[in-house]
């Protein structure tokens, strides 16, 4: 059962090996780095950096991340439903399988409409 994941593991090691080795080769072959105060400063179109190097950003990004977690889980729950849908149809349980998913999506739809009404997804301001 799990041995079908063995090639994935091998590919992971090959891909990691490729990434690490190219970085190492670049260190070995590349021109050795010299630094000075200007070169060490953050890039700001040629000017000296002004202010905090991590500016504050809109709280909307956090809201988006939280909404993502909720709705991505919804998507993942839909996959097994979608895959078994035809089997339920063949057994004549169409109404049950259709309305159960409608209920699940309906509950999340309330949350979605609430977020929409609250302006969580509006970037106008």
């Amino acid at each position: 059962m799990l041995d079908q994941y063995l090639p994935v593991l091998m590919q992971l090691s090959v891909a990691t090996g490729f990434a690490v080795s190219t970085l190492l080769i670049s260190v070995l072959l590349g021109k050795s780095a010299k630094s000075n105060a200007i070169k060490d400063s953050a890039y700001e179109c040629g000017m000296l950096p002004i202010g905090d190097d991590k500016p504050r950003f809109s709280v909307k990004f956090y809201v988006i991340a939280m909404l993502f977690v909720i709705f991505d889980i919804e998507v993942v729950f839909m996959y097994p439903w979608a895959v078994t849908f035809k089997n339920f149809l063949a057994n004549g349980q169409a109404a049950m399988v259709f309305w159960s998913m409608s209920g699940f999506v309906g509950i999340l739809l309330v949350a979605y409409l609430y977020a929409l009404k609250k302006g969580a997804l509006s970037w106008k301001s």
Partner: protein
Amino acid sequence: MPILISFIKIVMVIFVVILPMVAYSVWAERRVSAVIQERVGPNRVGIPFTKIRLFGLGQPIADGIKFLLKEDFTPGHVNKFYYWLAPALTMVPALLTCAVLPFGSELFGEKMVIADLNVGPLFIFAIASLSVYGIVLAGWASNSKYSFLGGVRSSSQMISYEISLGLSLVPVLLIFGELNLSEIVWEQSKNGWLLLPFWGDGAIWNGGVDRFFLLFPAFIAFIVFTTSIFAETNRLPFDLPECETELVAGYHTEYSSMKFALFFLGEYAAMIIGSGLIVTLFLGGWSLPFGLDAYLMNMTGDPEQIPWWLGLIHIGTFLAKVIVFILFFIWVRWTLPRFRYDQLMRLGWIIFFELALVNIFITAGILILTRGSAS
């Protein structure tokens, strides 16, 4: 022995197919953009020490050597560990997602897919969403305003479009009732591609009743899926994370030499694998159109056995379809202007989210109505 075979497949896919394809899609991008903008583009680098230019086909190799030989500089103001980790974290998931893509039918009785998992699309989403870490870390560890803004924008864009990507796939799974990508391609080979269901007896289309009705939700799913792939790979018209006019280069502003090249390679590899996924799900993967597969297999006498030449044709067909999609990606990039950030979020969260959700219920409704027995 199976370990050796899968090792050969992995090495072939990564080093003979994906990486050269990445290098030459960069070359193609530069040449095509030059044609679109009425420039010449890179046409000089051919065979070294001769005057043979070969349309500049040596350019990607020269670029690669240049990336390796450039000064390997780590700025003093960055967080060193995560700064070095980020490029690798972008590259590895991009190369890992191709493990479940079937790139051919069979060659000498061996399935042309690295890992024939029963959870293909789930695996791809799981791994592809890891690549957001590389971008966030690059933006955060660089300690620079432009990198930081680029990283925040990019992560929020990628997670937003992941939802419409996932939702647009549900109708496809409803139609096929299958999560194994190899099986999905086999079904399409026998019964018609999802967007071209015109041959075979149409077993998955219920004998042809819902064949044409399902074309409509399949097409909507295709549009949403393709556009979301554009957003996931951060390409125009969704390249907000690195729009040059606002953020210099976005999350890789502070990167140079091979570390920058890994971001670049990862982005193009993600584009190629995204094209491969679109082709696999909607356009029949490696299969030939109009039932030619069944015809050619019957011609050889044994309809269960795939001869080696047909296996090679299948691999060639898959690559040809992927190349068409890469050219489409390039064409779109040099044709459309960039979205504004609020437009991008509106498209992802309001238009695509609702369209994909409605599309699921349309597909389910069509399936119920055409298959009757709703008692």
